[in-house]
């Protein structure tokens, strides 16, 4: 006679729930796992919240769900080869990442001052356009988190126009890989600047409309004002940067503090908040976009003609016709493609104002075409570090608002 044994097979989720129960705090507290797939976490952030009712008593962010090993990959690539990976860092503003990465490499190569004027202007346009595009999405997602879904689609419509411009400029909607060490992959297409200025007129209307939907909306104000206050000291202590830092009243913008490229030539303000709450961070983004539009207008007015690449065959690929005819250019082409730019031994850090904050590249070179170590200082990662300090005491609905207002991108956070 055989005996049958019943084996209980439970749902994996139930098992995990049972495991979670063990870590549950005794009594009235409850542990809530937010993410990694949750509508408010903008990708794959995971928050482990300990709650007393709806109030959070402890928050532990858990990052790394999108850790792709970018920094390690960089060690095996020439400087130009790594460029596409920078697209996918802050994937809301690929153009700005491109520019800042090549600026870092150029600093390593020591050719920062050789860059032609036109190149600098186009790069500035790229950065500011990327800032507008990133802030538009940031605002939309923030609004969506507080429940105003339509604002998101509204801002995304403007983003589509930027995509159109970017596509005309770079050939890709999204992952641009536009810049090259020592220059750009191509010049502006014809008539592009006119379209840009047309877009600038339209986008300002959109800002106004977005503001009518949100800025004085009493519900939005209730949700964001005096919520998630980061004091000036906290912001500095945690090393925040970008709009999140300026929302707390610290007037620090890398574009002003350590002007790079040609930012010292433009007339623009750095908006600064007063209380450091979610609303201030929102308002700063809106104002910053308006400032970006201002810079873009100045760029369009001042942009000179001329070459877009450094005149150095060891840095930039020579034109094709010369490669086919000249020996020297052929060798340069060969060396650049196989070996990459020959960087000097040394280490540099270059930080620049990305839409999310200070994006820094630390490159340690032992010479040769590849970096020995490339470290990315991702603003989102640093900005998120404040969460465990900021969230306790807030309600679960505030978590959503705070996450939205911090406007992080897991791509660069986890790298």
């Amino acid at each position, binding site marked *: 006679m055989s005996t049958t044994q019943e084996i209980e097979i439970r749902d994996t989720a139930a098992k995990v729930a049972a495991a979670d129960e063990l870590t549950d705090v005794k009594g009235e507290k409850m542990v*809530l796992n937010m993410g990694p797939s949750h*509508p408010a976490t903008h990708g794959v952030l995971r928050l482990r919240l300990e709650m007393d009712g709806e109030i959070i008593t402890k928050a532990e962010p858990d990052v790394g769900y999108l850790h792709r090993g970018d920094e390690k990959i960089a060690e095996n690539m020439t400087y130009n080869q790594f460029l596409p990976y920078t697209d996918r860092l802050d994937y809301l503003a690929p153009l700005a990442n491109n520019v800042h990465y090549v600026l870092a490499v150029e600093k390593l190569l020591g050719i920062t001052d050789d860059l032609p004027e036109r190149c600098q202007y186009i790069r500035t346009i790229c950065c500011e356009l990327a800032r507008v595009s990133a802030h538009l999405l940031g605002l939309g997602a923030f609004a969506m988190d507080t429940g105003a879904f*339509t604002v998101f689609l509204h801002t995304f*419509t403007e983003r589509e126009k930027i995509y159109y411009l970017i596509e005309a400029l770079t050939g890709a909607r999204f992952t641009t890989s536009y810049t090259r060490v020592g220059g750009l992959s191509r010049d502006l297409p014809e008539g592009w600047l006119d379209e840009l200025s047309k877009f600038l007129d339209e986008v300002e209307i959109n800002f106004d409309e977005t503001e009518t939907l949100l800025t004085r909306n009493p519900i939005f104000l209730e949700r964001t004002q005096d919520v998630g206050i980061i004091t000036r000291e906290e912001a500095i202590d945690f090393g925040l940067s970008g709009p999140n830092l300026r929302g707390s009243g610290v007037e620090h913008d890398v574009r002003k503090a350590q002007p790079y490229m040609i930012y010292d030539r433009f007339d623009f303000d750095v908006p600064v908040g007063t209380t450091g709450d979610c609303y201030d961070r929102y308002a700063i983004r809106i104002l910053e976009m308006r400032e970006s539009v201002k810079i873009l207008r100045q760029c369009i007015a001042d942009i000179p003609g001329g070459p877009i690449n450094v005149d150095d065959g060891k840095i930039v690929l020579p034109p094709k016709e010369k490669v086919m005819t000249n020996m020297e250019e052929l060798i340069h082409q060969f060396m650049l493609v196989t070996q990459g730019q020959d960087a000097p031994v040394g280490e540099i850090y270059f930080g620049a104002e990305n839409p999310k904050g200070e994006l820094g590249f630390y490159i340690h070179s032992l010479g040769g075409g590849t970096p020995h170590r490339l470290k990315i200082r991702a603003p989102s990662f640093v900005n998120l570090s404040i969460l465990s300090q900021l969230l306790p005491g807030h309600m679960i*609905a*505030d978590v959503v608002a705070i996450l939205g207002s911090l406007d992080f991108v897991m791509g660069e956070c986890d790298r």
Partner: protein
Amino acid sequence: MTDWFTSLTPNEQFAIFSLLKIMIAVFTVVLPMVAYSVVAERRISALIQDRIGPNRVGPFGLLQPAADGLKFILKEDFTPAYARKVYFWLAPAVAMVPALLTLAVIPFGSQLGSQKAVIADLNVGILFTFGIVSLSVYGIVLAGYASNSKYPFLGGIRSSAQMISYEIAMGLSVVPVFMLVGDLNLSAVIDYQKSGAWLILKQPIAFVIFLVAAFAETNRLPFDMPEAESELVGGYHTEYSSMKFALFFLGEYAAMIAVSAMMVVLFLGGWTLPFAGLNETATSLGMGLLQVGIFIGKLLLFMGLFIWVRWMLPRFRYDQLMDIGWKRFVPLAIANIVVTAIYLYLTHGK
């Protein structure tokens, strides 16, 4: 058959008639309306957001609800292993039924043939409605409890507090209406408004409070705490799938229809349209149907408002919602009652 029927007491005949009317009304009018309000929601939201909306399924996307509904029926009916099964199955039904029952006392027209155009003409109609509406909280609370999962649990807790709170504001807001009318029967309320003195003009504060409370009772934005998508994923129905989820989904729209109908009756004069001369009890069938049409037209107005607001506003936070309910609307409603009482005392008092 007829012998058996005539042998029954009038009360029993009334009960059987009512049940029959409820079934007819639910299956031929309410359910299609519910289904198409979902389409309306999707199309109107698309309009607001500069999109097109569902247009591939059938002409103008009109078959979209059929596709969605039948897909849900054919989907696997899944119950999580750790759910409390009986309540898990019970909750969707409990969520759907109260909204449909509410419609039983709503007079949607004056006279259709020889029948009064109301399913059950109770003389405490409004109290019945509130009683039934107050039961609708069970669907959500049970769903939150039965899912045995944290997000639904939070949704359940939120909704039980929210709905009880706003019921009070809602109940208090209609008291002045009945003080003016002097009767709890909903048909009497309409009779009172026949002359064109719609109560929205006489009691605007009551109307506003009722409207806001209606948003809260139906869990629509800006008060959709229990299911707040960006916070609680799906709230109380996170763990629900297939037809059970569809029942919650449709229950929300049925509840919207129910409160819209109540608002039409209480504040917009029901089926009357005084400035077009349509304020007398219908004598012919065509007239009766026209009045039903007017009623539905007014109802759709409110449905449109519900949908429009949902896509325009952000959502409140849980504690703000309770603050508004208890600290603003309840005192305001009480003040409104007092003012109305003083007014009545001065004008009609002895």
